[in-house]
């Protein structure tokens, strides 16, 4: 069907691609996976006021994504244990590459780019042993697999790069999951999550573990402040434990701070934090608890500030003032000064995360 004109246009587009920036993609600010009303799955680009900027169909349920630091590209990951990761052109939403997993590996839902954008790191597991793996991919050569490191834990989940650095931090959630449909948890009695830091050459720089009585607090999600403060969100695997802290704050070289809200508010989180983000100005950190239908806001020292109700809220990201949230009811809301206001309601169920793009 290619006419001479469309052929030339696509040639032009191809030659122009290396110089395209996020501005050329219409400056999407966020990415979020969703379930459509017909039961299919897609990834959406979203603008600052919650409007769609693009839509990409996904072959199965999605989870999170990693935005390229300079080019208008993002890699969308399958829900764990996943078999796909798609490199997406955020200008028009078309799929540029599909990552090809080595045999015996599964994607675990998250990934991160190096500062220059030349290396993609993915959180993975070895399907047979459950041991965690960090996969390395060459973004300059069609996302060829170039190597892998042990993540130094079981069940790695979110991985992130420290701002202004090529060091990485990964949340080893500690849970070994069967590859069945129910994702049966196999090691709850012995699980031991950790937070591990790596250099760009794969050297383990530091590893944080929790006190023995908190060994069932799975460390799963991460948010990073520009000064290097790492906030981590936890999910307890101890049935009925509604008081356990779900927020951790850590700075390289010091002990982590675990933070709770006062008892009545802490209980509403139901032992589960789904996503975590710093506010636009970095002064606050928010956790979402979709089971309890609440967003919990702390200051960056771990002092509880406020709790906001929103049914099925799960995705959260920074907004110019405060936070942006997504929920399973299709809502996109802004949270500022203790109040939630609707920006948009989309006819779809937003999945776990609202991914903030590096623009």
């Amino acid at each position, binding site marked *: 069907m290619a006419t001479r004109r469309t052929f030339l246009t696509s040639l032009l587009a191809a030659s122009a691609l290396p110089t395209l920036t996020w501005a050329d993609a219409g400056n999407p600010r966020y990415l979020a996976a969703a*379930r*459509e*009303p*017909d039961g299919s799955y897609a990834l959406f680009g979203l603008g600052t006021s919650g409007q769609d900027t693009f839509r990409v169909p996904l072959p199965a349920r999605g*989870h999170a994504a990693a935005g390229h630091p300079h080019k208008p590209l993002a890699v969308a990951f399958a*829900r*764990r244990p996943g078999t796909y990761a798609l490199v997406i052109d955020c200008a028009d939403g078309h799929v540029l590459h599909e990552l090809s997993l080595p045999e015996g590996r599964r994607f675990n*839902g998250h990934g991160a780019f190096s500062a220059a954008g030349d290396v993609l790191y993915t959180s993975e597991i070895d399907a047979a042993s459950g041991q965690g793996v960090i996969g390395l991919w060459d973004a300059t050569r069609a996302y060829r697999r170039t190597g892998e490191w042990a993540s130094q834990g079981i069940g790695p*989940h979110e991985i992130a790069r420290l701002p202004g650095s090529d060091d990485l931090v990964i949340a080893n959630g500690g849970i070994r999951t069967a590859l069945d449909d129910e994702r049966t948890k196999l090691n709850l009695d012995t699980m031991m999550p950790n937070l591990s830091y790596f250099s760009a050459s794969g050297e383990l720089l530091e590893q944080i573990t929790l006190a023995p009585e908190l060994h069932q607090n799975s460390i*799963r999600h991460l948010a990073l402040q520009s000064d290097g403060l790492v906030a981590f969100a936890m*999910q307890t695997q*101890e*049935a*009925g*434990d*509604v008081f356990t802290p779900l927020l951790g704050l850590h700075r390289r070289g010091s002990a982590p701070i675990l933070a709770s809200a006062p*008892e*009545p*508010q802490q*209980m*509403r989180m139901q032992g*589960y934090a*789904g996503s975590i983000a710093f506010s636009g100005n970095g002064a606050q950190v928010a956790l979402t608890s*979709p*089971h*309890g*239908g609440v967003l919990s806001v702390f200051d960056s020292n771990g002092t509880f500030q406020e709790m906001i*109700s929103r*049914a*099925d*809220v*799960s995705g959260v990201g920074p907004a110019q003032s405060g936070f942006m949230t997504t*929920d*399973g*009811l299709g*809502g996109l809301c802004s949270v500022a000064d203790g*109040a*939630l*206001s*609707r920006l948009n*309601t*989309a*006819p*779809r*169920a*937003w*999945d*776990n995360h609202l991914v903030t793009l590096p623009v």
Partner: protein
Amino acid sequence: MKHFPALIAALALTASPALADLAHAVDDYILPGYAAFADTTAALSDAAADSCEPDTLKSDWNAAFDAWMGVSHLRFGPVEDEGRSVIIAFWPDAKGMTPKGLSRLIADEDPIVKDPKAFKDVSVAARGLFALEFLLYDDQFDATAPYTCDLVRAVTADLADIAGKVSDAWKDGYAETLRTAGAPGNTTYLTREEGLQVLYTNLVAGLEFTANERLGRPLGTFDSPRPNRAEARRSERSLRNVTLSINALQNLTDTLVDAPLPATDAAFAAAASTAAELNDPTFDMVSDVSDRLKVEILQQKVKAAEVAVLSEVGPALGVSKGFNAGDGD
């Protein structure tokens, strides 16, 4: 493809509201339910002011617990402010925090029981219906001892205060918030579907709680049954709570959906009649190899009611369960 989301939205709008009756559920189910809980807890508090004799208070305490079972599965709105629902019914208590918290107060003769405002800072585990169950039914406590009697009065007054606040907050605003779901300026329920969805999600979660916790905890496993984990076993309310929860969830369904629900009606009726045939108020029978099966069958019937609700009520209302609330990753 560009018009696909708009088309779906239009379909969703035309499919649901005719069969749903949000106002009916609010006015004839939720408001009377919370009013009954406020009235019965006030009566319990008044009775405790007169006497701390357990035999006198047990009937008022049971009436309050019965009323709570009518609304216990509503986990949104005013009952969630300040953690009220967990204060009212702190269960399951895997670490035995309720008896520990009560024993500590009694051992210290903590004067906090004399100050209703300060009592709000007492651990949730030492408050509410289950704290009172220990104080009235468990041999390790003597409700008529002077300090323990003050504690009984403090817990009943606190419970009545909470129940009154929940009922008032519904009457004075939250009922209207839910009735007007989707109206301009309603920042709690952005669409009418969200109002229906919160009730639907609570309906399904209520059935899951009864199947997995009220029945699942005492069942344990075949090799390791756990009758001591039955809810409210000291007052021998374990089976009664299951029965009342099934009734309440059926009432919620009936007021919310204005359409025939043959499979759901049949499933609720089957669960209720199976519960009625059990002659063991505390599920001690889970330890008996053959009788245990009867409790397992009841659990299956409650799960079958959930399946019926998911397949019949959800489509009738045009909503589905919260996508993230029932999930984890």
